């Protein structure tokens, strides 16, 4: 069953008719030719399909396009519209990937994570001692690699390039 939706992708509006079963990931890759988000597991377990959906990171493989009519999507490709994003630069400088398949999802996730930590949104690592909740205010990612590992845990890397991703993200968080 087809429905018309409008998706704003990396700053450009697209009007398209989609089957109700079409996920945002398939709309991006198969209909709009934007292969930056990757199809890894297609079940919300690997994070390779991560995009910014109305400013927040989300698994595009579990979001139905029909339910997100009018939304704004930013992919890793869109982050580089005006030259490389600092997180992309840091991933290159730190050799924070091997095969690269998970990298666009990792980068979108890291960009969102930096904003979440700056806004004081907690992670499981923020709750580090039993008792009262953690203090309010920004979370210092540069000083706490456990926060980075926890907050990036929804993005898997089969090459296990994690060891270089953490310092790449720390560097951006520190700058």
């Amino acid at each position, binding site marked *: 069953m087809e*429905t018309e939706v409008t998706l704003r992708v990396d700053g450009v509006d697209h009007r398209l008719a989609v089957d*109700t079963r079409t996920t945002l990931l398939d709309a991006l890759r198969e209909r709009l030719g934007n292969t930056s988000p990757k199809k890894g597991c297609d*079940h919300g377990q690997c994070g390779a399909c991560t995009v910014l*959906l109305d400013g*927040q*990171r989300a698994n595009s493989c579990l979001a*139905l396009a029909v339910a997100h009519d009018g939304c704004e999507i930013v992919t890793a490709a869109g982050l580089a519209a005006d030259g490389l994003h600092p997180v992309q630069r840091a991933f290159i400088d730190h050799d924070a990937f091997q095969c690269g398949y998970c990298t666009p999802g990792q980068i979108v996730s890291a960009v969102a994570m930096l904003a979440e930590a700056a806004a004081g949104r907690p992670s499981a690592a923020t709750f580090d001692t039993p008792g009262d909740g*953690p203090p309010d205010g920004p979370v210092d990612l540069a000083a706490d690699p456990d926060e980075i590992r926890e907050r990036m845990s*929804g993005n898997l890397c089969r090459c296990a390039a994690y060891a270089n991703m953490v310092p790449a993200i720390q560097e951006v968080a520190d700058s």
Partner: protein
Amino acid sequence: MRPFRYARATDPAGAVALLAGSPQAAYLGGGTNLVDLMKLDVARPDLLVDIRGVTSRSIEELPDGGVRVGAGVSNSDLAADPLIRHRYPVIAQAVVSGASTQLRNLATVGGNLLQRTRCLYFQDVTTPCNKREPGTGCSAIDGHNRDLAVLGASPDCIATQPSDLAVALAAMDATVQTLGPDGGRNIPLTELHRLPGAEPQADNVLAHGELITAVDLPPLPFATRSWYRKIRDRASYAFALVSVAAAIDIADGRVRDVRIALGGVAHKPWRATRAEDLLRGGPVTEERLHRAAAAELADARPQSDNAFKIPLARNAVVRTLLDLAADTR
């Protein structure tokens, strides 16, 4: 995925009416569990009624000092909310211990409570499963059951309820507000989910089309000191083998009040009332905690691969309460 129709509800009553007329229809919230189950052919709705525009996305203080959480609030927003973080840290902590930020941004509070079991056989349509297809049998009882229930299971189903949030809400005595074809009602969170018995296809007591509109948290001043301990196979991004949500109120060296709920052990969040009753009125000692935890798990029955969960749950209760009490004994 099978074809389905899509409709966007404009108000709660309209959503309920749409579902009431369609026995195979389902509500769509964040979709993080439902869409996955549709891909797996486990869920086969012929109509999705999108309720994200009709359930409240606000968190507000109630006159009695409690808090009302709209069912449409995202899991991420719930965990970040100052009222929740300060008054019920166990809830915020339980939420961020589950899934990933990408999933929590999409997932709603109402949907979190209604997510289906992650039993491998329930999710695999090539195997018998009484929950998925009543009467076909339970593959888990003689299969891989390491993750499954040790309390309250039945010969027909040993699935566990996967939500971390539900465990924390059970400990906090939360109430779920619903709207159904026959009007609204309030359901204590501890009575929302059910034990499998002979009807494991029903995860909870909601009627078809009954919509969760909000979750109410009663005031519980001592919950400002609370903790969620989740034990799993990896450090992050995995379902609980065992989890404990706890809060404790200690005065003059004695337990004035305590709340304990267990996750990962049953078909519902397991409120540990037996242990709570044994702990009230006495000092917080390791010995008393062990006795209370042992009483709570006394009726536990292991499957072939999950006997480890029984001592794990006992020890998790003891450790969590010892840690919580450490500064106040």
